[in-house]
């Protein structure tokens, strides 16, 4: 399951989707909205995705991971829209026969989802807003 959604993510459901009777290990990564960024208070975040492409890019990453490790189940869900601190932005869950592979595969997937998937977030502070990582830090507040 690959899902880009405006609705709150049901973490339990993502984990269940990734589970498998033959698997002994499930690893889940849950990315949540922090209440601080660059020492400023985060009021909310805005996420947007190029949805058609994002799903395809995540599928490529999953295929790579399934090739490197013996994935018995997997699920990725990414939220878009307006998110408040504490809310869940992304969940990646994988199941494997043994635990080491579950950690490695899950980390591979979230690292690549963050690096390659066309999804963007804007941090909205008390005193301004900023597209994350768009510009070098020195120009970030221009």
């Amino acid at each position, binding site marked *: 399951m690959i899902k880009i959604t405006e609705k709150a993510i049901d973490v339990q459901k993502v984990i269940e989707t990734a589970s498998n009777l033959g698997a002994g290990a499930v690893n889940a990564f849950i990315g949540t909205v922090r209440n601080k960024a660059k020492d400023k208070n985060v009021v909310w975040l805005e996420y947007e995705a190029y949805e058609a*492409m994002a799903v395809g890019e995540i599928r490529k990453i999953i295929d790579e991971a399934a090739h490197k490790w013996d994935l018995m189940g997997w699920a990725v869900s990414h939220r878009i829209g307006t998110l408040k601190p504490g809310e869940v932005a992304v969940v990646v869950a994988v199941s494997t026969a043994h635990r080491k592979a579950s950690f490695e595969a899950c980390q591979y997937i979230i690292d690549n989802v963050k690096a390659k998937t066309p999804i963007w977030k804007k941090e909205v502070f008390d005193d301004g807003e900023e597209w994350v990582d768009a*510009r070098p830090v020195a120009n970030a507040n221009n």
Partner: protein
Amino acid sequence: MAMRYTLKTFGITRDILGGKEVAFEMEGVKVSELKSELMLRFPEMKTLNSLFIAVNNTYAEDDLVISESDEIALIPPVSGG
């Protein structure tokens, strides 16, 4: 002959170009030419950490030839998760 492309914008590129889908006319037919022309007309694009072009939902190489019917998207630095 000038080509008329339609550019989908995301993240900071939407703020810079001022629209979700922007008509863009230019003589060039390659991804590299599109990038140069964007930097020329919107100098703020040069301040970004990176800019990729996706054509029909796939990251495109610089020498790819684009056509008016392609789905062309501007991909500024991603920051999901």
